[in-house]
């Protein structure tokens, strides 16, 4: 799904004026829909929104400034292949005048926090390889580029599958028994590692 980041004319505000609210019900749905419809190019049907916010209301957050909804994040989580419990960030939007002030980071962080507390082992999302803002944001949060997806978007742009791995209890044990420096191999390399 899509992420948006750009810098344009800014709205003046103090960070403390932003109120972060967890999805509270049907009354929030039009706010989220309007925001996403406005900023993202994919046409999502109302069912898409309902799918996410009905099944995982605790993972969606909105940012309000003086009563106006200026940003939102929509996520889900569930069992993935290899029975990994995985969180997924579907949509992230902050309207243009409010970008560059950490609102998106705050929204994402809150969602990831809930995912972690719910027992997720990792979080993923896709972002266009040209979306420098999103890549920087998630990079700062510790996401790695797990894969590149050729021509993922309909306009022919490639995407990165970004992944954040939460530290797992068993990894700590492995570090104790092996003579390792601070690096733990990435999941992608664990296969490689075992054969060396």
């Amino acid at each position: 799904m899509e992420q948006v980041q750009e810098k344009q004319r800014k709205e003046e505000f103090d960070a403390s004026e932003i109120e972060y609210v967890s999805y509270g019900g049907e009354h929030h749905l039009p706010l989220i829909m309007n925001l996403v419809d406005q900023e993202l190019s994919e046409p999502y049907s109302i069912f898409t929104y309902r799918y996410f916010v009905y099944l995982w209301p605790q993972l969606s957050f909105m940012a309000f400034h003086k009563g106006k909804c200026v940003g939102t994040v929509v996520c889900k989580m569930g069992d993935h292949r290899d029975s990994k419990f995985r969180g997924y960030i579907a949509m992230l939007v902050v309207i243009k005048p409010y970008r560059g002030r950490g609102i998106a980071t705050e929204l994402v962080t809150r969602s990831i926090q809930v995912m972690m507390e719910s027992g997720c082992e990792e979080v993923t999302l896709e972002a266009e390889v040209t979306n420098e803002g999103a890549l920087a944001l998630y990079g700062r949060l510790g996401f790695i580029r797990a894969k590149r997806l050729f021509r993922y978007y309909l306009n022919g742009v490639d995407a990165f599958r970004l992944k954040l791995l939460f530290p797992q209890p068993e990894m700590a044990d492995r570090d104790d028994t092996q003579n390792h420096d601070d690096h733990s191999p990435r999941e992608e390399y664990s296969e490689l590692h075992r054969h060396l």
Partner: protein
Amino acid sequence: MDWKSTEQASMERHAPNHSSSSSIPATENTVWADASPLLDTVCKELRDGELIHGDNFNLYAAMSALEIMDPKMDSGIINKYASVDEAIEDGLAPVPISIDKTVDVQCIIDIIDHLLACEATWHKGHSLAQTVFSCAYLVRPERTLSHALLDSYCKVIRATCKAVTTIVSDARTHEEEDLFTMSYGLPLNVEGDEKCLSLLNAVEENISRQLRACKAPLSKRKPLEDIEPLQTNFDLEEGYCKALLCRLRFRKHFCHVLSCMRRPQGRGLELARKHIASCISELGSILNSAEFLMFNAYGTCEDGTEDRTTASGRQAIGFDANLNSRISAPTPPRSIKILSWKKAIKYFENLLHHLDIICSYPLDPSLDALLRFVAQFQKAQPDLVARVHLQLLLVQDGKLYGRYPVLAVIIRAARLTEVIMRHDILKNEYFVQLGQIVINMLKILCTNAAWQRRKLGKILQDWRAIYSQLELAFRKESGEGSSISNGENASAGILKHILIWVEEQTYWIAHRFLVLGFELELYSPSEYCMVYWYLSVVLIRLAEKKHLKMTVSDGSGRHTSTSRLFCFQG
């Protein structure tokens, strides 16, 4: 509320005789029921957020729902034309385009140019329906029969699209190129298209004569030669003849490139190179014709000359982007931008260049040399059509280039002598598997880098699994009493060689997996240390295996020079 009972009631009301309500007759597999009463009731009773659904239809399934009458989702929403026929009735694609022969020729050249732009756009990953077949002339073949030039050109385009679609389908590498080969409802198998080249030749002949005629000095012109000029403006005759000729010749040679390259066992590669050279030459002429065509443009030129899809700058007649929207996909296709004419020519130049590289490869039976070649080839990031041709050359009938059985290639790569081929152990199941794994690897190496890396990561398991199997077999063979060093146990000896080679190959794959990560920009600088650590481990092991392979085959344990240790690909 009881959905089932309402539905039942409504079906009973509209039992077998559908008179006024439904104009859709029931067939063997379908019965239509009027859902209006159900919807009426439901509209009054459902609250925000409630959903009536069948047992197996949940919110996740609902995401694929189409909102009827939303133009972004409903293909049935009328764009400009409800059908191709309506478009044609509206005058979208007149035949002939103009009674004025000069205008007719100008417009046909524009169509040819725009088709080239569409074709390049298709190759780049968009659907055939939205690109090449947005041309109404292609979609109604019977309409162009009266116009030799237009007809033969349309036939060649359809035949070429069919050939390329077939090649990509045959490669069957993965689903990423599904969009490319989607041709449902498009006329790719029109009767008569197979004669396209001879028809094109006839037209080319004619225009060549017209060109000769207009260039001949007045005194030498034979009045009895009844050559009707291409168009009515004598001063422009030479220019238009030349502009058309290079375009027709490009198409002809391109057809030949495709058919030569498809000949089995690489037998047509040398001839293909000649046609490639001709194509490139004609492309040069096509580019040069732009000045003449732009200067003589009929009507006004578009301002955005860089985006223009024709040499003249005019918009081509006969195209509608939404012509096939009803048959092409369940949801209305996203609007796409057709490549500019200049970019299209650049695309074809690149494609031909890559095809030429493939054609000039000496079909070396050495796997090492081949892997180096493929890795090098991929650095230029060739597009799908070129990559597919490479794959189809490399793997034919389970043989390398259709010539060398894969097992023979492996034997050679493992530095065993060909004599081994007759040994019974090679008939074992795991050798068959090994062959399949190698073929699979070769196919993967021809895919795009992103896909390739993912697949390479996955096949490491297969390589490890076959290694374990071979190792078990080796232990079994060598445990039967004879010692390997006096050369009595040939089976164990063979297996030992193969084992070393399998390990070497596994490390090569791992190395490629790691290196591709750089090309795909997957690593952030903070990860480089880790990546280089893995790379160093893999490369050292790779070098060890190569060295071991060479010393084992030498038999005497002679040490090969260290310089050879480090000349591996990458």
